[in-house]
C-alpha cells in the first residue's frame, strides 16, 4: 500500500463509510506521513465547506400540487374501476348466488306472463273504440279551453286577460268565434299590454286572410303610440301591402307622436 491507496480512503473516512480495519490502517499511516495528513486536511476543508452550502426548502405550492395530483389520480382510478371491474364482480356474484332451479322458475314465470298476455290481448274493436274515445276527449278539452278563454277575456284583471290570449296557442283549431273575440280585445281592451299580447297571438294566425284583413283595419282604431308602432312593424313582417293606405291615413292624423311618425314612414318605405 502506498500513499495513493491510502488517499483513496479519505472520502470513506469523511463520509463515515469506512470499516474499523481500514480506519485503523489509515490512522497508522497518517501518523507517519505528513504529506498525507496535509492532503486529508485539504480534503476535509472542502468536505466541510460543502456541508455549509445552503440547501433550499421546497415551496408550499409543491405540496399542494402533489395533493391535487394525488386526488385527481384517485378519482381517475375510482372511475376506471367502477364501471368495469365492480360491475363484473357484481354480475359474477349474482350468478353464483342464483341457484339453477330458482333461475328456471323465474324464466318460467316470465314465459307464462308472455303467453297469458298474448291470449288475453284481443286486437280489433277495443283498440278502435279506445282511439275514438281519445279523439272525442281531446276535442272536448279543446272546446273547454275555448270556452274558458272566451270567458277569461272578459275578466276585469288585465293579467287574466293576457293569460286568456295566450291560451289561443293551445287551442288546436281556432274558429271564427275565437278570432272575433281576439279582434274585439285588440280594438277595445283598455290595457295596452293586453292589446300587445293579442296582437302577437293574432300574428301567429296570420295565415288566415280574414285575420290579415282585420289587422289592417285595426290600424285606424289604435291610438296608443306603442300599439301604432307595433302594428306597423307587424305589417312589415307580414309584407301586407294593402296596409299602406291605412298607414298613410294614420300619418295624417293630428297629434301623432313624433317617434311613431318616423317609424311608420320607415315601415311604409319598406312596404313600397
Amino acid at each position, binding site marked *: 500500500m502506498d500513499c495513493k491507496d491510502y*488517499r*483513496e*480512503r*479519505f*472520502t*470513506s473516512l469523511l*463520509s463515515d*463509510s469506512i470499516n474499523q480495519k481500514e480506519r485503523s490502517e489509515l490512522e497508522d499511516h497518517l501518523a507517519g506521513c505528513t504529506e498525507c495528513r496535509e492532503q486529508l486536511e*485539504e*480534503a476535509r476543508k*472542502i*468536505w466541510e*465547506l*460543502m*456541508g*455549509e*452550502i*445552503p*440547501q*433550499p*426548502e*421546497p*415551496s408550499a*405550492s*409543491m*405540496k399542494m*400540487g*402533489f*395533493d391535487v*395530483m*394525488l386526488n385527481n*389520480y*384517485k378519482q381517475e*382510478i375510482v372511475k376506471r374501476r367502477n364501471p368495469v371491474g365492480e360491475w363484473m364482480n357484481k354480475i359474477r356474484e349474482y350468478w353464483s348466488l342464483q341457484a339453477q332451479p330458482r333461475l328456471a322458475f323465474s324464466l318460467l314465470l316470465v314465459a307464462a306472463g308472455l303467453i297469458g298476455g298474448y291470449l288475453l290481448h284481443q286486437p280489433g274493436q277495443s283498440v278502435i273504440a279506445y282511439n275514438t274515445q281519445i279523439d272525442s276527449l281531446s276535442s272536448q278539452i279543446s272546446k273547454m279551453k275555448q270556452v274558458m278563454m272566451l270567458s277569461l277575456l272578459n275578466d276585469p284583471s288585465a293579467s287574466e286577460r293576457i293569460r286568456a290570449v295566450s291560451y289561443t296557442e293551445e287551442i288546436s283549431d281556432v274558429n271564427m268565434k275565437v278570432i272575433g273575440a281576439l279582434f274585439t280585445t285588440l280594438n277595445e281592451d283598455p290595457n295596452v299590454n293586453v292589446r300587445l299580447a293579442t296582437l302577437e297571438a293574432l300574428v301567429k294566425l296570420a295565415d288566415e286572410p280574414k285575420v290579415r284583413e282585420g289587422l289592417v283595419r285595426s290600424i285606424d282604431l289604435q291610438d296608443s303610440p306603442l300599439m301604432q308602432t307595433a302594428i306597423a312593424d307587424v305589417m312589415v313582417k307580414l309584407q301586407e301591402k294593402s296596409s299602406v293606405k291605412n298607414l298613410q291615413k294614420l300619418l295624417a292624423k293630428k297629434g301623432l307622436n313624433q317617434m311613431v311618425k318616423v317609424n311608420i314612414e320607415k315601415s311604409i318605405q319598406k312596404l313600397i
Partner: protein
Amino acid sequence: MLKVKKGDIDKMGLLYVRYNRQLFRFIFNMTRQKEVSEDMVQNIFFRMLKYPDGFIGFGEFKTWMYHIARNVVYDHFRKVKRTPAQSELSNFEDKMEGDQYTDAQLDKEQELKTLETAMEKLSDENRELLILCRFQELKYHEIAKILNTTEGAIKVRVHRALTQLRCNYLKIEN
C-alpha cells in the same frame, strides 16, 4: 410502496411526506433551478403512482425512487442541452446588502460561492456522486445500488470526484 401497489393510494402521501425534501434537494443540487426541481419532484411521484409495477417488492423504495429521479433529471439535461448560465446561485448578493456582516462572514460566503462554481464545473457524473454522498448522505452501498455498480467502484469514483472538485476550487480561487 407495496401497499400503494395493491391500491392503497393514500400511502403515497406518506411516502411523499417522508421523501419529498430529500428528493427535491437532490434534484435542486443537480439542476440548480428551484421551479424546475419542484416540477420534477411532482413528475417523479406521478410516475411512481402511475407505474407502480416498476417497484419489485424486494429492494428499497429509496433505490427505486432515485432510479426514476435520475432518469427524469438526465432526460431534462438532454432536453435543455445544459445551459449553465441559467443556474440560480444561492442569493449571496441579496444577503450582502445587509451591512452588519463581518469580514469573516463575507470571506465564508466568498468561499461558498467559489465552491458552488467549482461544483458546477464538474461533470454530471462526478457532481451526482458527490451530491449523493455528501448532500444526500447515502452510504456507499446505497449509491452502488442506485448506480448499478459495486461498492468498491463507488469508493474510488467518489474519491476522484472530490479530488477533481478540490482542483477546480483551487483553480478558481487563484
